[in-house]
């Protein structure tokens, strides 16, 4: 994430007090992010009742996704050859990973409007990294509801799976590791999507189909989907590395046809590559930015 946040060139402060060697872009970006986010949290807390309602509803809306799965399993014993506990495990891993990404970078979606009405200029004038500012803009703590809900399902699934899976240290460590890598992949996709907004301000919804759509897709076993679609999310948009491939390893199931078994361990590498691509795209986007001037 540091790499992403520093992708925007930071301008020196007006006073020039900071020296070159003391200047640390990553720390600067994180500090900016923390400050802006804290500001928004304080502002949210002014309307406490509203905050409580929105937090609860953020929790519920993701819970509904899970209710669908519960309703489905009220009717059937397995889905695509996967048991309820296994589907819950898929749900929990992607839900938590996506929740973390959405909590930290969810505000990027709103950038299209800022580009259209010219208010992004204000951000560019401030002596702080642009991506950190935009990402923390209107920071919504209520999105924590999504993370909590995903975590709850994940823990529940692990309780259900405690006897079904041949646990080893490798498999056990793979679970938190999957969530972290998955979150980073989702974040990279969000930054990539936001970068596209520099050219197409109204295209924010396309990102949704990869983030929200990807999250929905990954809640279900890969065996449910057409093989071409599975190959697409392995090789084209590498969402399968968020949870499918590592989860298949944890559950002791074979990788999808045409995908090598070592791919289960490639998530960190894929996450890194995605971050690199997102960083480059963001840089290109900022360079080509032309203000509306209003």
């Amino acid at each position: 994430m540091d790499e992403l946040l520093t992708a925007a060139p930071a301008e020196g402060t007006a006073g020039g007090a900071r020296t070159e060697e003391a200047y640390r872009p990553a720390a600067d970006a994180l500090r900016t992010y923390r400050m802006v986010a804290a500001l928004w949290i304080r502002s949210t807390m002014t309307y406490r009742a509203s905050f409580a309602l929105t937090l609860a509803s953020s929790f519920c809306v993701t819970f509904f996704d899970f209710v669908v799965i519960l309703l489905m399993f009220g009717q059937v014993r397995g889905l695509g050859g996967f048991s309820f506990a296994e589907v819950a495990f898929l749900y929990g891993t992607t839900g938590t990973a996506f929740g973390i990404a959405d909590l930290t970078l969810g505000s990027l979606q709103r950038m299209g409007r800022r580009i259209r009405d010219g208010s992004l200029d204000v951000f560019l004038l401030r002596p702080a990294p642009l991506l950190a500012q935009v990402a923390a803009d209107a920071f919504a703590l209520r999105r924590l509801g999504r993370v909590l809900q995903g975590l709850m399902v994940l823990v529940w699934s692990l309780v259900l799976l405690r006897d079904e899976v041949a646990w080893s240290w490798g498999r056990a460590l793979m679970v938190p590791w999957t969530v972290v890598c998955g979150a980073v992949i989702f974040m990279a996709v969000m930054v990539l999507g936001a970068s596209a907004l520099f050219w197409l301000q109204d295209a924010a919804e396309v990102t949704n189909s990869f983030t929200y759509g990807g999250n929905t897709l990954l809640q279900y076993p890969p065996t449910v989907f057409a093989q071409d679609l599975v190959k697409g999310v392995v090789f084209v948009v590498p969402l399968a590395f968020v949870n499918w491939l590592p989860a298949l390893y944890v559950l002791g199931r074979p990788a999808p046809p045409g995908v090598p078994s070592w791919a289960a361990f490639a998530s960190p590498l894929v996450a890194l590559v995605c971050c690199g691509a997102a960083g480059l795209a963001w840089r290109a986007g900022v360079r080509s930015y032309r203000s509306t001037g209003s």
Partner: protein
Amino acid sequence: MLRLYATVAAGGFRRYATYRVATLAGLFTNTVFGFVFSYTYIALWAERPQLGGYSMADALAYVWIGQALITVCGMMGGGFEAELIERIRTGDIAVDLYRPADLQGWWCAANAGRAAYQLLGRGAVPLVIGAFAFRFTLPAGPAGWAAFLLAVALGSLVSFALWYLVAMSAFWLLDGQGVVQVAWLAGLFFSGMLLPLNVFPGALGEFARALPWAALLQVPADVYLGRYGDGPGLLRAYGFQLGWLAVLLAAGRAAQAAATRKVVVQGG
């Protein structure tokens, strides 16, 4: 007077037609979700054929109707309530109330224009793509399509009445976010957007099918699938939609009257 509302509706249509990239992006998203849900429904119906009385072809049609109507019938937000709430919050609503037109009628007309555009620009294409990809059930001839379109129009009006009522709450609460979120959740769950309401078990299913949100997607989809037959069954379906429409419009009107009588408009 009627001409005024027609002009407002045309304005609503044109306003949304301006953002072509947004329409395309939305189209893309609806199509992606259509594919994802289609495969999960295929898995579900493969395990339990005739679940909820739907064949697999019916269930797939249901998925794509849902994606086509998502903005038309406002299952996940009416598309206008945020703007209306903002006008109430800032006090701009005072200008609207001065106009020689009814507030509810004005917004209803504008929303009808928006819905018409969303149906043409954003609803029709995913339906066609889905039909080619999955060969799902189609309505029985032109009469079936006409019956479906009427149900969609009524569903869209019910959606307006619902979201208008939600927006009215901002007169008292100012920050409408919480109420909007709760309404959004209820709509998402009870419209059948996540899973057809006739798959919901027992009492929960019956309860859900009696609520106004059933008029947004479940009823139009069942009209499309010809599950009401033609004649009395179909009339009952429309009657259900019209009944909720009347109740919700009246409630919105009452809230509006109470608000304009009692509430001090935000100045500034």
